[in-house]
C-alpha cells in the first residue's frame, strides 16, 4: 500500500484517501453531502454487522448510502470530487484565512486582534486583505502588549463579541498567561455561568527552521491544565479551515494551535461550508497492529514512518488527535481496543506534555486492552538549539518512530 496522507490533491502533493484501500465492499462512497449552515444534528450509524444506517433525528433509521469515512474529513473527496463538486486547492494559511473570512462575513460580531494583522496582513498572511475588506474596527492592529490585548479580547468576549486573538508566535502568549488562565478559562465558572467567553486564541507554535529557543515553543503543555478552555491543533488545510470555523462558532474559549512549518501545505478542500468537530480526533490511516497517536507537524513524520513500516509489513493505525483538550477518548479507545498497542508521537517536551497526559488517560481508561506499555516519543527536554543538526535531534524523526513501532510490536 502506498503511503497515505489524509488529503486529496494533485498527484504531486498528497495522495488520495485511505477509503479506497481499506473500506470493505459493503461501504459505498457517496457524493459529498453539502452542508448548509442550518443542518440539524445527524448521526451516521455503522452497525457491527457492517451495514450502515444514516440516522436523522434519531427517530427514523433508513439504510442509505453515506460517507464511509465517519470522521469529518474530505477523505473520499477524490471519489466525491469527480462526481459532485471539484473543490478548490489552497495552502493551509489560505484555508485559515478563508475560514476566518467566512465567519466574519457570517457574523458581524467576529473581529480579529493581533500584532500586524491589519495593514501588514499578518506575519504569516493568515489575515491578508481582511483589514481592507472589513475595516480597522474589525481587524485591529495592536501594539506589542499581549497581556493587555488578550485581556481586552476576553473583556470584549464577555459582552458577546467574538474576537479572534492572534499571537504572532504562540510563545508570546506566555505574557498573557494570567489572562488566559484566570479570565478566559475561569470566568464562565466563577460567574456561575453568567458570562461565556467565545474567544479564539490562535497562533503558530512548534519547532520551526532554526528560529531559536524562544520562538520554538510548544505551549499546549502549559495550557492543558487550564479548566474551561478547549485546545485544538490543526494539521491540514481541510481541518485548519474546519477547526477555525468551529472554534469561532463555539461558545467556549478555544486555543487553536497552528504550526510554523505547516502553513504552506497544499490541499484540495470542498467548496461548501463545513466545520470540523472540535472534540473529535481524525482517523488518518486505519490499521491493525498499532495505534499511533499524534498531532500537528508530527503527523507528517508519522506518515513518513508509516511508509517504511508498511514496507516492512506493519499495519499502523494513525490517528491525528486534533483535540488536545479534551482528548477524544472515544476514537482513541476504539482504536486501542482493536490494536492493543499505543505509540504517542508528539512535538511537546517529554515532561508534562500532551503525551504525558494522554498516556495517563489511556492507562486509566483502557489498561485492560493494552498488550504492551504505552510508548511516548516526545521532544527532548531542552531549549531548542539554533544549530540545524541539534535542532533536528530535539524533535522526533521518522526513523525513531519506525524503531519504536518495531519495538512495540515485538
Amino acid at each position, binding site marked *: 500500500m502506498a503511503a497515505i496522507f489524509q488529503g486529496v490533491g494533485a498527484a504531486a502533493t498528497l495522495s488520495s484517501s485511505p477509503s479506497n484501500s481499506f473500506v470493505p465492499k459493503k461501504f459505498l462512497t457517496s457524493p459529498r453531502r453539502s452542508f448548509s449552515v442550518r443542518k440539524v444534528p445527524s448521526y451516521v450509524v455503522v452497525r457491527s454487522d457492517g451495514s450502515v444506517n444514516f440516522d436523522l433525528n434519531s427517530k427514523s433509521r433508513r439504510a442509505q448510502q453515506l460517507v464511509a469515512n465517519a470522521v469529518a474529513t474530505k477523505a473520499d473527496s477524490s471519489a466525491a470530487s469527480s462526481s459532485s463538486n471539484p473543490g478548490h486547492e489552497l495552502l493551509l494559511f489560505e484555508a485559515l484565512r478563508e475560514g476566518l473570512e467566512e465567519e466574519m462575513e457570517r457574523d458581524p460580531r467576529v473581529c480579529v486582534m493581533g500584532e500586524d494583522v491589519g495593514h501588514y496582513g499578518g506575519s504569516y498572511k493568515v489575515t491578508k486583505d481582511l483589514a481592507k475588506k472589513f475595516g480597522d474596527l474589525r481587524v485591529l492592529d495592536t501594539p506589542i502588549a499581549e497581556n*493587555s490585548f488578550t485581556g481586552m479580547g476576553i473583556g470584549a468576549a464577555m459582552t458577546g463579541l467574538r474576537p479572534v486573538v492572534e499571537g504572532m508566535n504562540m510563545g508570546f502568549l506566555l505574557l498573557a498567561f494570567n489572562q488566559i488562565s484566570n479570565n478566559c478559562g475561569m470566568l464562565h465558572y466563577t460567574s456561575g455561568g453568567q458570562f461565556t467567553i467565545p474567544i479564539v486564541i490562535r497562533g503558530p507554535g512548534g519547532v520551526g527552521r532554526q528560529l531559536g529557543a524562544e520562538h520554538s515553543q510548544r505551549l499546549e503543555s502549559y495550557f492543558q491544565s487550564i479548566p474551561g478552555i478547549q485546545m485544538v491543533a490543526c494539521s491540514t488545510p481541510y481541518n485548519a479551515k474546519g477547526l477555525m470555523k468551529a472554534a469561532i462558532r463555539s461558545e467556549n474559549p478555544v486555543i487553536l494551535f497552528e504550526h510554523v512549518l505547516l502553513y504552506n501545505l497544499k490541499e484540495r478542500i470542498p467548496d461548501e461550508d463545513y466545520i470540523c468537530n472540535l472534540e473529535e480526533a481524525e482517523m488518518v490511516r486505519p490499521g491493525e497492529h498499532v495505534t499511533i497517536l499524534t498531532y500537528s507537524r508530527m503527523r507528517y513524520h508519522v506518515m513518513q514512518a508509516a511508509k517504511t513500516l508498511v514496507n516492512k509489513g506493519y499495519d499502523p493505525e494513525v490517528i491525528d488527535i486534533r483535540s488536545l483538550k479534551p482528548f477524544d*477518548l472515544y476514537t482513541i479507545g476504539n482504536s486501542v481496543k482493536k490494536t492493543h498497542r499505543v505509540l504517542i508521537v508528539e512535538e511537546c517536551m517529554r515532561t508534562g506534555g500532551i503525551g504525558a497526559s494522554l498516556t495517563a488517560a489511556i492507562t486509566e481508561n483502557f489498561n485492560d486492552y493494552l498488550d504492551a506499555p504505552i510508548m511516548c516519543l516526545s521532544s527532548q527536554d531542552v531549549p531548542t538549539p539554533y544549530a540545524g543538526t541539534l535542532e533536528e535531534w530535539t524533535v522526533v524523526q521518522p526513523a525513531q518512530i519506525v524503531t519504536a513501532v518495531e519495538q512495540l510490536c515485538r
Partner: protein
Amino acid sequence: MALSHLASSSPSRSANLLKPLSSVISLRRPISTDTTPITVETSVPFTAHQCEAPSRTVQTNAKELATFFRDMVVMRRMEIAADSLYKAKLIRGFCHLYDGQEAVAVGMEAALTKKDCIITSYRDHCTFVARGGTLLEVFAELMGRQAGCSKGKGGSMHFYKKDSNFYGGHGIVGAQVPLGCGLAFAQKYCKDEAVTFALYGDGAANQGQLFEALNISALWDLPAILVCENNHYGMGTAEWRAAKSPAYYKRGDYAPGLKVDGMDALAVKQACAFAKEHALKNGPIILEMDTYRYHGHSMSDPGSTYRTRDEITGVRQERDPIERIRKLILSHDLSTDKELKDIEKEVRKEVDDAIAQAKENPVPEPSELFSDVYAKGLGVESFGADRKEKNSHGRHLDNTRDDPSGEVIIGLCFHNPLPA
C-alpha cells in the same frame, strides 16, 4: 403639621423660621421624593491633569441625598456584618471589605446608567450592591450557598451581575483593567453610546498591563474610564513606598486625569458624570478617588501595623462619607436625626434578615462542581479525560454504554451554528 413640628422643636430650629418659605414647606414633604434641586459645594476642588476640571458646585436633591444615605448605610452595615460572619467562620478564604469607601460606589452609580459597564477588583461587595445586587445574593455568595450571585462558586472576589453590566469581581491585581478596556472596545464596536468604568487600587496602579491597556484605549479612542480608588495602602505598603509618583491621576501622561475627594459622594458623582461625557467624545480618562478603608486589606490584616489607629479614627471623624451626607441632610433640614437613625435601624434589620435567609440557604449540589466549566456550543458535549460528561452519542467516557444493542456508533454532529 410643619408649624406644630416647628413649635415643639428645639431652640436650634427656631432659625428655620427665618428661612425662606420654600425650605419650610419642604419639611412637610417626605424626604425621599423631593426633587427640588439643592446646590452643594464639594469638600475640595478637583485637581485636573490635561483637562478642565469640572465645577465644584454640584446639583443634588433630597431624594438623591436620601438614596445616598440609605445605600451607604446598607453597604456599611453589610461590610461590618461580613466581618462578624468571617470571624464566626461562616465566610472563609478571602474577604476584602470596602467600608470607608462607600461614597465611590454610590456616587459613581448616580452618574451612570445600567448600560454603562463597571468592572472592579476583589473589593467588590459594595459595587455589586450599587449595581443592583441584593443582600441575599451577597451573603449567600460569601457563605458559598446556592443563592449566591455566582451560585456559590465564585466567592468574595467573584461577584458578577451581567444584567446590570457589572463585570466583577477579579482576584488578580490589575487584570481587570485590560478586561475593562475590552468592554469599552465592545461598546464602541456595537455603538452603544455607553462607557466602561474600570476600577483598580493604588497598588494595582503600578501594573504594566494598565499602561498597555491605556495606550491601546487611547489609540483606538475607546470610552474607557480608569478609576484609581486610592486608599493609600496596597495591602501593607503605603503608596509613597510603592509608587515613585503617587499622583495617579497624572500617570496617564497623554490621557487626561482628575483627582477627586473619594469620601464625598457628590464630588464622585460630579467627576463620574464629567468623565462619562469626556470619554464618549475624547477617549480614555483617569479618575483618582482619594478614599480610605477602615478595615485592613483583608480579614487577615488588622490594618494597624502599617498605619496608626489615630489616622484611622481621624479619617472616620473628619471624612466619613456617611457622616458627610448625614450632615448635609440635617443642615438642609431634609430630615431629622431620629428619622435617619430609624433608617439605620431598618437597614440593620434588613441586613440581619438577609443573613438569616442566607444561612438557611443550601450549599450547591455536588453536580455543580462540573457545571459551567464549558458552555454547550455547537451541540456537541464535551467528552474526554474528565470522564464526567457523556459524549454526544450518549456514551460514558470510559466507553461503557447504556444500551447493549450492539451498535458501534460513529457519529458526526453538524449542528445549527447560529445562536438562537
